[in-house]
């Protein structure tokens, strides 16, 4: 077969062989990608009927789930029947199971993924009917992929009349299937969702114990054990909770098993949480975990407090004050040594959740959350934001964490490098790439800016769920009107200084965009050179840089209640990215860019060559409004009178990358707050040491 072409698939190499046929690596010469092509033996197809096999395979091809191997195409030529599938790089679970069994954590994690795959298929009326460890692949990323959904079909029943044959003789037909068969299937019933759950029980037993529960020298002995004997006790190393779940899957009476795959998945996930809890306590006894932080006393946050989230290039800091904003408690650094480019506070629907992106030069970028103001942070086993394999891209950094609209409390967005937008519809549990923007035809011509090719600004339209803005450096501003499916460049009138064409359709280096919820049609833009306003959802932009010392700058801030009031912090130029003439001054417009005034009382006006980065300025929502900004030199300034006067809140921090302010509402919180699922854990409890938090007074 090697070298031959079937339809438009060129057979490259044999990669496997089983009772159902031979699997080849093949090249799809139309779509230019490698696939797995399973060629089914003519005999098998004859026995169960080609039409039936085609029907089964086509039904299975409708499944789309991250833990199910995708079927691209089924077809037949004059002599052959074949199935074209996603090519999975990894190993069969059956090859990974060693004689001592896998770790409990691994068994639970794989089991939950398989149960999730079954739940998806069962909801669509499709049973697997041949689930076994050699039908499950584990990818290099540690993700489980269930193979051959629906393909087993009636082959198993063909074998039923021959159970008295030796196991070896049966193997050609059953290929290791028999030990996974449910009692009712052995009695001649067609396999269904409940027999799938039995098979998963056998698989979990095998993975935990390193051996199958029902064994024998002949098919008769095996089937006799399945029908009559309880499974042998699991090794003592398997915790009771997991053993109980496996036992329930292996109930001979169908009614006593889990009735739905989703129930089994929930049971495994609950166990996952419990296992992680117990592991955490044993970790605590071993001493501090260096990754999260050195010891500190945490903030005690009360209702109505103002909280500042400060991300630096060497970790995150939290500051807390009561509403008078005169004394600030400081805790940190959290995530010691890691760059924190994005933070956010999510207080929607009674949550009090902090989000942070951590960037280690060695160990990558992760999104983490805390529901208790920094005592415990999630520490995901796997990165939740990841580019799809076929994109060939890998995540370098998370630059922005943006909450969805108030009436979509589970929506979250992240802007990342390389420039892409990710969204989560389940409060951050899972994330997906917004392909409409990632696959935009302009993308290959976006230019890398000083900070990389990054998507750093995300502005959902507060009143229109279909409309949203995203900005890329250096690609410009893009707008969607259809909830992210398609995006249009919206840069008309925005100048560039680094291309021969001064007003191109795209390629602008945006630094920040803000809008006020009461005037969603009006946007303000701080560009890499240029200050602009749009009055028509970004269709066109006009220059508003009258009365500022420089129209270069990064940070831009909207007053929370005054739609005409915007704050900026100009720096001299792209070459000398410091405040002009050593004057540290915030500029404010109160007439939507008609004029600007310098705000400098309390700020150094001599030798202050400072830089405030694009996310380095924030506002609280009190009256009068508090404004805060952090400098690249590690100083944090605050104003509690809307910018009229300023105080230095703290200095000596590492380079400040982002500042976010929030007023904490604990009153509105439900008695049971929505908690973070344990899935992305282990959460890491911060160790306490003698170091006390700093208190500063102003």
């Amino acid at each position: 077969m090697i070298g031959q072409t079937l339809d438009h698939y060129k057979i490259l190499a044999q990669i496997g062989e089983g009772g159902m046929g031979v699997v080849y690596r093949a090249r799809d010469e139309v779509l230019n990608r490698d696939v797995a092509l399973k060629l089914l033996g003519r005999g098998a197809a004859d026995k169960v009927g080609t039409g039936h096999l085609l029907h089964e395979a086509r039904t299975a091809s409708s499944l789309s789930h991250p833990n199910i191997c995708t079927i691209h195409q089924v077809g037949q030529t004059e002599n052959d029947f074949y199935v074209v599938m996603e090519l999975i790089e990894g190993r069969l679970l059956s090859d990974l199971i060693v004689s001592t069994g896998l770790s409990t954590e691994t068994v639970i994690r794989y089991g939950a993924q398989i149960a999730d795959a079954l739940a998806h298929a069962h909801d669509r009326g499709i049973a697997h009917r041949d689930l076994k460890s050699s039908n499950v692949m584990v990818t290099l990323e540690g993700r489980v992929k269930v193979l051959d959904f629906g393909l087993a079909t009636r082959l198993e029943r063909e074998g039923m009349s021959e159970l008295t044959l030796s196991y070896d003789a049966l193997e050609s037909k059953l290929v290791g299937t028999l030990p996974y068969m449910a009692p009712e299937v052995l009695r001649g019933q067609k396999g269904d969702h409940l027999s799938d759950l039995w098979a998963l029980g056998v698989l979990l037993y095998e993975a935990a114990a390193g051996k199958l529960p029902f064994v024998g020298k002949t098919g008769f002995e095996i089937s006799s054990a399945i029908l009559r004997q309880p499974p042998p006790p699991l090794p003592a190393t398997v915790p009771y909770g997991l053993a109980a779940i496996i036992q329930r899957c292996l109930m001979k009476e169908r009614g006593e098993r889990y009735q739905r795959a989703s129930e089994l998945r929930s049971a495994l996930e609950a166990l996952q949480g419990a296992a992680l809890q117990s592991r955490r306590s044993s970790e605590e006894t071993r001493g501090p975990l260096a990754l999260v932080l050195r010891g500190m006393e945490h903030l005690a946050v009360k209702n109505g407090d103002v909280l500042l989230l400060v991300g630096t290039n060497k970790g995150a800091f939290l500051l807390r004050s009561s509403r008078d904003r005169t004394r600030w408690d400081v805790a940190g650094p959290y995530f010691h040594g890691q760059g924190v480019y994005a933070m956010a506070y999510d207080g929607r629907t009674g949550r009090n959740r902090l989000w942070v992106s951590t960037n280690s030069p060695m160990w990558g970028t992760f999104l983490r959350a805390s529901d208790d103001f920094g005592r415990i942070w999630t520490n995901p086993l796997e990165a939740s934001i990841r580019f799809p394999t076929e994109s060939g891209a890998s995540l370098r950094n998370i630059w922005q964490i943006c909450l969805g609209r108030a009436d979509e409390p589970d929506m979250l967005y992240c802007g990342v490098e390389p420039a892409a937008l990710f969204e989560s519809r389940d409060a951050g549990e899972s994330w997906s790439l917004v392909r409409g923007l990632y696959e935009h035809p302009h993308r290959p011509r976006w230019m890398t800016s000083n900070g990389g090719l990054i998507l750093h600004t995300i502005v959902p339209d507060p009143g229109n769920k279909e409309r949203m803005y995203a900005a890329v450096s250096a690609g410009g501003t893009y707008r969607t009107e259809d909830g992210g499916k398609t995006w249009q460049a919206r840069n008309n009138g925005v100048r560039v200084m680094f291309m021969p064409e001064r007003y191109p359709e795209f390629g602008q280096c945006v630094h920040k965009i803000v809008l006020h919820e009461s005037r969603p049609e009006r946007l303000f833009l701080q560009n890499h050179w240029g200050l602009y306003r749009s009055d028509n959802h970004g269709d066109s932009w006009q220059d508003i840089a009258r009365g500022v010392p420089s129209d270069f700058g990064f940070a831009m801030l909207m007053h929370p209640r005054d739609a005409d009031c915007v704050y900026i912090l100009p720096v001299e130029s792209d070459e000398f990215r410091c405040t002009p003439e050593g004057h540290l001054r915030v500029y404010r417009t109160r007439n939507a860019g008609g004029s600007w005034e310098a705000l400098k009382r309390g700020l150094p006006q001599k030798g202050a060559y400072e830089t405030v980065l694009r996310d380095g300025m924030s506002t609280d929502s009190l009256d009068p409004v508090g404004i805060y900004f952090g400098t690249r030199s590690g100083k944090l300034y605050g104003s509690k009178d809307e910018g009229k006067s300023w105080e230095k809140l703290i200095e000596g921090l590492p380079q400040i990358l982002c500042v976010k302010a929030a007023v904490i509402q604990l009153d509105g919180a439900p008695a049971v707050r929505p908690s973070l699922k344990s899935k992305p854990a282990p959460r890491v409890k911060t160790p306490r040491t003698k170091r006390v938090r700093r208190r500063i007074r102003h």
Partner: protein
Amino acid sequence: MQVVFNIPGPLRQFTENRSSVRVEVKAGADLREAMVALFAACPGLRDRVLTETGETRQHVNIFVTNENIRYTGGLATLVSEGAEVSIVPAISGG
């Protein structure tokens, strides 16, 4: 056969604080297969050592015995019975 991975301090939170992890792989396995076994045993390691495209992170070095795999075929480097594989953070900072 068995392969031993030496785990750097920052990653031991994913190995129950063990400085080395022993995994069982088939004879003739390459490093990629050995790492699949390592990640199965210690799932938190995968995304911290490799990118989502399956490449070793830029500032992580992997040595089989004393050879940096960048010069011996990357993850396709063959490992032998009892081989020691060291995961080491590269010179980095800023």
